[in-house]
């Protein structure tokens, strides 16, 4: 095998030094009756060429943005990744290194994480950032844990119905069995109902979870929600889309106490949903409660500026069952990618990217709404890069299946998340989609409607 070094001669010499006569003898501490007496039932060994052919064949069975124009969103986005991100992050010194427990030989990673924290604070307008968590959904759950642990009197968690349905499912999984009540505020017009928020949030509320731009792409009035939340002495947690902050007010400016996000769109591919990047930033007051890795600046014994993992007394390897979280890692490589991406774009580039998404999404909404069988659903609410369409013929699956034949991943059917929206689908338009693709999708939907769907884009 290409990765093993020991030749039979090496093995012989080593066994001799150990003082045993076979490798088998080294396993003598495993009781005989606990050993496997046969080979594992697995596919046979493949060389690199065979394996490459096998994986290429599997890849060839999948549609992808290379074969289909992707209008899918809902928390995973087909944003452009500059070549420099791939080139730098694929350096072995970054991706084959370990958690920086030895700061002397990890200054590259530590400085990169410190810069990531800085960039996330700049991006969000928050005081603090950790060095990342698993993904946007579990980061949201960690934010709720942090709020619950902060000693605020309320125990109830209020979640707006416009928060990503999978994120809400994660909250249910994490908290329901702990006996913590999660109150969901149903959404009406694809946007939070402020009157309902006012009515629901009270002294028993520990925290309120809002997502803006929300799952439907709509922009919430976070500042107004923040006022209600803070009046009741509760914690406001905002889940946000990092790209949107090229245009929209930052969570920190809107009054969020904790800001979390799915950060994969900052320079990482969609990867069928993972690995992703859980962003978490918060106010200063959470400094000793913030879960996950944190990098701090200090000086070495010669007085040189340097960076170390810090505040480790919150962590499980020190505090065990008293830790603020069981998380003992970060998404280092993806935090690195996000940093490189933000460093490349700068404030102007991010603003331009966000503007392109917004212009194109609004153009697409207008254009697709002109198709006879389609209509916009939450037409009155402001949106960023995603919007909802209704198929007035109620055959979303059929419509999208035919669009696929023509080369489009045309949208995410919403019936799977909201049974009452069985005739609706979510369309996302990133900066990568061209006018030509948008027009072609509209034309395709029209042709499907008129019954001649065989024309390809």
């Amino acid at each position, binding site marked *: 095998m290409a990765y093993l070094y020991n030749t039979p001669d090496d093995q012989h010499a080593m066994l001799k030094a150990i003082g045993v006569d076979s490798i088998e003898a080294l396993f003598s501490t495993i009781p005989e009756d*606990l050993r496997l007496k046969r080979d594992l039932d697995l596919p046979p060994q493949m060389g690199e060429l065979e394996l490459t052919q096998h994986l290429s064949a599997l890849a060839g069975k999948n549609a992808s943005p290379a074969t289909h124009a992707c209008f*899918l969103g809902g928390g995973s986005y087909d944003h452009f990744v500059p070549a420099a991100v791939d080139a730098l992050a694929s350096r072995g010194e970054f991706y084959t290194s370990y958690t920086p427990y030895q700061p002397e030989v990890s200054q590259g990673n530590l400085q990169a994480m410190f810069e990531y924290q800085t960039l996330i604070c700049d991006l969000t307008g928050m005081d603090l950032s950790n060095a990342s968590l698993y993904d946007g959904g579990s980061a949201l759950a960690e934010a709720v844990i942090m709020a619950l642990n902060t000693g605020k009197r309320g125990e109830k968690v209020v979640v707006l119905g416009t928060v990503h349905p999978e994120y809400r499912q994660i909250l249910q999984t994490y908290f329901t069995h702990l006996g913590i009540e999660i109150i969901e505020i149903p959404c009406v017009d694809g946007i939070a109902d402020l009157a309902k928020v006012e009515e629901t949030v009270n002294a028993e509320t520990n925290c309120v979870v809002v997502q803006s731009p929300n799952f439907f792409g709509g922009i919430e009035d976070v500042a107004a929600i923040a006022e209600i939340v803070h009046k009741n002495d509760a914690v406001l947690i905002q889940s946000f889309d990092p790209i949107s902050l090229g245009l929209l007010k930052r969570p920190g400016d809107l009054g969020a106490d904790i800001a979390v996000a799915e950060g994969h769109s900052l320079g990482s591919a969609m990867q069928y949903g993972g690995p992703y990047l859980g962003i978490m930033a918060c106010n200063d007051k959470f400094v000793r409660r913030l879960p996950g890795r944190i990098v701090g600046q200090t000086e070495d014994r010669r007085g040189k500026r340097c960076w170390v993992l810090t505040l480790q007394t919150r962590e499980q390897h020190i505090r065990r069952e008293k830790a603020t979280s069981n998380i003992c890692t970060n*998404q280092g490589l993806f935090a690195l990618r996000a940093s490189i991406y933000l460093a490349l774009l700068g404030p102007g580039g991010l603003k331009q990217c966000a503007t392109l998404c917004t212009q194109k999404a609004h153009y697409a909404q207008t254009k697709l709404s002109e198709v006879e069988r389609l209509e916009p659903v939450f037409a009155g609410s402001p949106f960023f890069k995603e919007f909802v369409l209704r198929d007035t013929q109620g055959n979303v699956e059929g419509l999208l299946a035919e669009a696929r034949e023509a080369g489009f991943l045309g949208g995410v059917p919403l019936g799977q998340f909201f049974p009452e929206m069985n005739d609706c689908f979510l369309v996302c338009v990133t900066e990568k989609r061209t006018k030509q693709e948008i027009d072609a999708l509209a034309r395709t939907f029209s042709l499907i409607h008129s019954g001649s769907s065989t024309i390809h884009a």
Partner: protein
Amino acid sequence: MRNQQATQLLSELSHPGRTAVTWPACDVPEQPIEDLIPGSYLSDKALQLPELTEGEVVRHYTNLSTKNMSVDTHYYPLGSCTMKYNPKRNERLASLPGIVDLHPYQDEATIQGMLQLLFELQGIFSEISGLPACSLQPAAGAHGELTALMVAAKYFKSIGEDRKVVLAPDSSHGTNPASAQMAGFKAVSIKSDPAGGVDMDDFRAKLTDDIAVLMITNPSTLGLFEKNMREIADAVHAKGGLVYLDGANMNAILGIARPGDFGADMMHYNPHKTFSGPHGGGGPGAGPICVADKLEPFLPSPVVVKDGENYKLNFDRPESIGRVRSFFGNVGVLVRAYCYILSHGPVGLREISENAVLNANYLLSQVKHFLPVPRGERCMHEFVASAGKLKQERGITAMDIGKRLLDYGFHAPTVYFPLTVPEAIMIEPTETESKETLDAFVQTLFRITEEDAELLHEAPHSTPISRPNEVQAARSPCLRANFCSS
């Protein structure tokens, strides 16, 4: 010749007006942005991000990279972390178009290749573990622990039992008790016996009727196979409890012993350890779990199933704990594990463990002559030496030795873990190192134990920085640029 500018921060390199990205002109009819989004929602100030050219960004990060030790550049005998070689083919294959760029909400008909891969991987993980059901969803080992404990909680609820206690040895990873607590259990620690195994008297004393789960790392963090494993598992089962195996050390027993066969009802894998996913400076990993049949209904939703010739995501799982992560999981890491396993096949996987254990025992046989290994003559994939005597006699600590190794171009072993060994130095060579490297490491280690104590206290001497002030970092935290309390 080091680039001095490489210690500057992005914000210090920034020059207003520079950028590295030119976006295309807007090709749809543009409208004033305020007509699309109400002005009150739009930011009225520019973001404080750095402004740099592409060349500056590339030089900055390339220089940063040279300040890391990594598996590609150095020997990394880091106990419990299994820092094995990360095959290049896996990186390329995980980046293939049609693999790396799939959207998680693509229709099943358009991702049959991906679903096939994931379905096969569920089966492969089950076969290696001897546990028939698998969830690929957890995002890291600790996330797998938490998920499995939630599965256990739901299982006990389903049979109408209210069990509160999770037992874990004091030598276990800190994530074990932390996960137990997060899943709503009370974590209780079991002592280790002098040989490093579970102290059977303490175990029996703590094995109460309300035990839910025993969490055990086997092979243990001391690199030992728990000799009383059968008895322990039987005792837990007799009380109606479940056994959880922390799979951090699976690299030692691939194809040799299966957790399901030696008594585990649940386990997690660390694919970034056992199956060579690169550690990425701290992540991402993944934490797939395998469980016994009776726990299958409670696994997170969805799982991949085969329906005739087609692969499907099954969301129809009424007893499932629900979802612990968005979308499907850390697929990119799982693809690498799949490639790694297929690169070896059943015989190759067994050879991995054989060589990992051979390398570890060879190192042990050499190291024990100058650094005592308190817990035995034989080990699995790793062993724990102690600098206790050196500290007593010459004031040389495990930390001193670790730091000095850096000067010689070796990454330090894990030090001060497990907590049950004084001045612990935990060494795991892995199977992807040669005898020559192991010999060089032993010689260096020996040479260090003979060196002047003062020299060691001030080590490392050759690295970009030395012995950072960690107390200061924690006492007055400076967690972002230009925002340090003095």
